[in-house]
């Protein structure tokens, strides 16, 4: 490949990366993204909501560490209780719903793009270090 061609390929790729940035910016301007940002802001500034989520997360982690997911009925009941508590908290409920709506938009956009490309854009573009957490 000569120098001109290399420069041309580089230019085409740069346009693609610019277009990727524009796509990101368009998502940021969406109602779903704004809803998520606001819900997260409310969550971060609410001590009670943070305490409830932390308590639930700690319990799940402890359970996973202690017995590989097997647990007594008492612990499961306690966990269910904490989960119920989370969804009774309006700030947390709004935060979870907003996150769900945002991910729904991500998936919808991915389906739209992938159908045109004939391969799954998100699966192909996922970093190898990304995992399931």
């Amino acid at each position, binding site marked *: 490949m000569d120098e001109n061609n290399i420069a041309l*390929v580089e230019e*085409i*790729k740069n*346009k*693609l*990366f610019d*277009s*990727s*940035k*524009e*796509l*990101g*910016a*368009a*998502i*940021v*301007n*969406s109602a779903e*993204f704004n809803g998520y940002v606001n819900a997260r802001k409310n969550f971060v500034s609410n001590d009670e909501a943070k305490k409830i989520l932390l308590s639930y997360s700690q319990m799940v982690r402890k359970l996973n560490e202690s017995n590989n997911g097997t647990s007594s009925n008492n612990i499961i009941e306690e966990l269910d209780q904490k989960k119920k508590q989370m969804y009774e908290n309006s700030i947390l409920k709004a935060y979870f719903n907003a996150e*769900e709506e*945002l*991910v*729904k*938009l*991500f*998936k*919808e*956009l*991915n389906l*739209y*793009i992938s159908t*045109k*490309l*004939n*391969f799954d*854009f*998100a*699966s*192909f*573009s*996922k*970093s190898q270090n*990304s995992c*399931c957490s």
Partner: protein
Amino acid sequence: MDVQLKNIADDFVKKLFSIEEVIDYSDAIEKYNQDSNLQSKINRYNYLVEETQKNQKHGNSSPELVKEINSIAAELQFHPLYKEIIDKQIKLKELLRKCNDEISSALGMDYARLTTSAS
């Protein structure tokens, strides 16, 4: 999804189709799908897997079928058209990861990871 986002997504797809990695991968897939000999082997493979599963459900073993499945699988794995797809896919994924980095950087979160997460 609103019209503006769709238009920007359309432009993004259009730009992707002007990139060598995407064109090469699409061509490799097309060649793979159009090879009738290869496709008949894939059909035979799928049929055998289905039959073996049916047999297993009824408690029957089918060593001859399993032997043929393994033989076709090995043949497919080393088929030049399949290897070509894998090679092109590696290059394509490298490019797409950079696109995802740009999208994710604008969002402040990993777009591909969240999109592929179970909901």
